[in-house]
């Protein structure tokens, strides 16, 4: 099983969609980067909190999962493009038949997984359909 410490480090980023922006080229990154892939060492990386509004680029419905996620199947997994540009992989909080490419979404704080019966519970961001 995964150790607590490994995923603990990422809590601010996972809970609040905190990523980074490179002040040299203006690009936004999520997951956060410490080195700008565009400017490399010339980049100037600053923390950035995303609004979380975005669009579904593609999705699937997971029917066979790893042991940690078995009890959640079927669940919708998607690649979401945040309005600032970066993309991330996340679960959608919706019925499988509701999911579609191009759907507008907003972030919601949810339980992601647990390390077995008595292990640590991991929280993070999922996305729900945005009706506004």
């Amino acid at each position, binding site marked *: 099983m995964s150790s607590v410490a490994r995923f603990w480090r*990422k809590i601010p980023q996972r809970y609040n969609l905190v990523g980074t922006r490179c002040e040299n080229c203006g690009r936004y990154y999520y997951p956060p980067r410490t080195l700008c892939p565009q400017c490399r060492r010339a980049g100037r990386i600053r923390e950035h909190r995303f609004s979380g509004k975005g669009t579904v680029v593609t999705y699937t419905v997971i029917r066979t*999962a790893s*042991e940690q996620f078995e009890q959640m199947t079927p669940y919708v997994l998607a690649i979401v493009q945040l309005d600032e540009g970066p993309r991330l992989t996340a*679960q959608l909080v919706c019925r*499988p038949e509701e999911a579609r*490419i191009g759907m507008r979404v907003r972030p919601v704080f949810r339980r*992601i997984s647990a390390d077995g019966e008595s292990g640590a519970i991991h929280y993070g961001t999922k996305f729900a359909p945005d009706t506004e």
Partner: protein
Amino acid sequence: MREVAVIGIGCTPFGEKWGSSFRDLFVQAGTLALEDAGISGEEIGAMYVGNMSAGRFIEQEHIGALIADYSGLATAHIPSTRVEAACASGGLAFRQAVIAVASGIEDIVVAAGVEKMTDVGTGASVDALAGAADREWEGFVGATFPGLYAMIAHDYMHKYPLTREELAMVAVKNHYNGARNPIAQFSQEITVETVLSSPLVADPLRLFDCSPITDGAAAVVLAPLDRAREYTDTPVRVLASAQASDTISLHDRRDLSTLDATVVAGKRAFQMAGLTPADIDLVEVHDCFTIAEILAIEDLGFCRKGEAGRLTREGMTALDGDLPVNTSGGLKACGHPVGATGIKQVWEVVQQLRGEAGKRQVDGAEVGMTHNVGGTGATVAVHILGV
């Protein structure tokens, strides 16, 4: 740089080999390859072993030394190195062996690949394979390996006119070829209906769109081309060896429906060999999922983007088509012991170029290509072989 040739090949039967251990499998493949090359173990200068996850599947690490030891070579003290790049481990092991011989540092080098995947349950193997993607930003939220390829498939089908039936035809073709390969995991032919009625794994991919969980090993022996005829009458030349990398996470790709690492590795390989796609007589591509074969045919330059589904339906990639793809049955029907796959692809192409592929022989095959992908496209190895 010296020219390099393959002088011997060996492969175990692929499948659920509960009666064989990890060690049994690679010793079997290695012995076949040495016999085929007509060499003894003491002549080996170095070994490179592709293996993705023995630590997860059989709780064994230190695979390089283990393999040399159980090949009876401990007292020979040869350098033996494990190479890991998820499902591209075998392709990279082959490339390392080619580089070792080409450089002049080693003469006779074995490239092998092995994986024993059926010693753990499905959930555990799904999780181990998810390690081929980004554990912290994909696996953490419940992304499985089939799930990531399923998202590629949805993206592709949103952009291009690929039908669900055309996708199924990739699996039908590869099972047809696998049924003509004695080492294949699946020896039965299937129909489009078989694929479309199989359970959904990750929409739109169904069970028969996915390569299976497989045990198996493969090995090949390399030598400098100018010495190859000391060992064999049928040396197969390595015309190109190319490798490329890309983002580990699928969501960071420029285009979800193009594996840029395949595009780049393919171009590098064609440039190195001085050839074009029209010169290739057959290709073993990385069809871990049916959609992956569609991408590979396009990304390697065998047709334009969006055409591979139609061309599959029209038979271009069939055994008797203009460009036979996955004559071995591919990962789909021959099986996919992840670390061994890249070496098995070389095994198949060498057999074809020697004219020893039996019922699946491609007439007059002189130039073949292998394409081995790690993860969802973060590593790609492409090789061109010729007689």
